[in-house]
């Protein structure tokens, strides 16, 4: 089990306290009716799925309950950093 640093609680806690919420920094379209089918496909379904450095969202569901972002290596599962939601992509 991996340990995850919650940037709000400022503590490393075990993974079972957290829920992964998928790829980070995917912005919902501001003008839904102006989007093409291809735009919707990209927004809804296409994912980076990188082998290596990955930006993802986590939620400290059994702690403070807040969403935050993380950078993790998908080969070693090691976290590079975690940062608060709304902060720029690292």
């Amino acid at each position: 089990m991996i340990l995850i640093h919650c940037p709000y609680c400022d503590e490393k806690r075990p993974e079972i306290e957290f829920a992964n919420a998928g790829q980070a920094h995917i912005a919902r379209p501001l003008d839904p009716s102006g989007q093409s089918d291809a735009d919707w496909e990209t927004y809804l379904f296409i994912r980076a799925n990188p082998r290596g450095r990955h930006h993802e969202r986590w939620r400290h569901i059994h702690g403070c309950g807040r969403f935050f972002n993380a950078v993790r290596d998908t080969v070693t599962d090691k976290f590079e950093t975690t940062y608060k939601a709304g902060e720029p992509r690292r």
Partner: protein
Amino acid sequence: MTRFSALSLFTKAFGGHQNWPEQWPDAAPKPAYDAIIVGGGGHGLGAAYYLAKKYGITNVAVLEKGWIGGGNTGRNTTIIRSNYLYDESAHLYDHAVKLWDGLSQELNYNIMYSKRGVMMLAHNVHDVQSLQRHINANRLNGVDNEWLTPEQAKAYCPPLNISPDARHPVLGAALQRRGGTARHDSVAWGYARAAAALGVDIIQNCAVTGIRRGADGAVEGVETTRGYIGAKRVGVSAAGNTSVIMQMAGLDFPLESYPLQALVSEPIKPTFPCVVMSNTVHAYMSQSDKGELVIGAGTDQYVSYSQRGALHIVEHTLAAICEIFPIYRRMRMLRTWGGIVDVTPDRSPILGKTPVKGLYVNCGWGTGGFKATPGAGDLLAYTIAKDQPHDINAPFNLDRFRNGRLIDEAAAAAVAH
């Protein structure tokens, strides 16, 4: 290729098993082929075999970055079934089940396909309704599936705890009698041996590092760790690594790769006669011919290529197994491992053409690709040979994520499957 027969096995057994010839040559890459299959698992080897056997394309190479069958083919829990809800899925998976029948004879290799039955348990009212809907849909599609009462389920699988005050009460079960297991390593080896005998080159330790395309955008060949290999047709069957390969051709795919874990117990005498799956509490179990209980756990929640998962996932599955089959509470587990599965948004595979000319894909089988091995191989071969999908795999195209014609087995099962 030396043909196996009762006599050849008998003679070699009495000769102390000396002088068995190698099953297929460890080929070195040639400068060019008519077609290349990326990924030397069951699906890829099957595709190469059917290309050579049914579609007459024998100048084929299978490129495997590790060793044959060392990826998800050797890491799954060997379950075969076709009781999927939607028409498209039922046709796809039943195509594979039909090919499993007789595969040992066709390949002259014992893949140990055992039709011991796959029983899916219902623990609550929703499960009962969902499984009965599946049974009705399956029977309309000509796929066998039947409803068992708790007593009938217990008679079919005696270790089952059907006590009404059990932690996970059994309200009934759906049984597909044609479902069962096969020995996964043998499937890879059997296809590799039969394909090599037809002229296919099976190249191990050869990772694809790039896809070379011509001025018109069409595929010309692949860059590998063993040099450039030319081919106008490239079929990618790389499971968890599909996204990485597709990026080499500039394609972003609707896939995410997760670790899926499995484990086996110490070997014991035969006690468990079938396959039992409980989707609600995540317990999937059968007993191998070696006597080990083979147990499938769930996926980890995060994207990973690490081929290992966390212990709490295994613990969750074992907790459910101990409740449903109390006789195994004191069993010790021998090994756990993980494989990387590529999951699509609708939990149905992508099998067909890509926007790049000459590039074909077979991916997105998620947590349940083993059962489809012969069918996926056959349909990928058909698609490559004819440059168009077969009617069976046509609905499993990439366009469905744009036009919305999803085949939403994820919603149908509401769990990993």
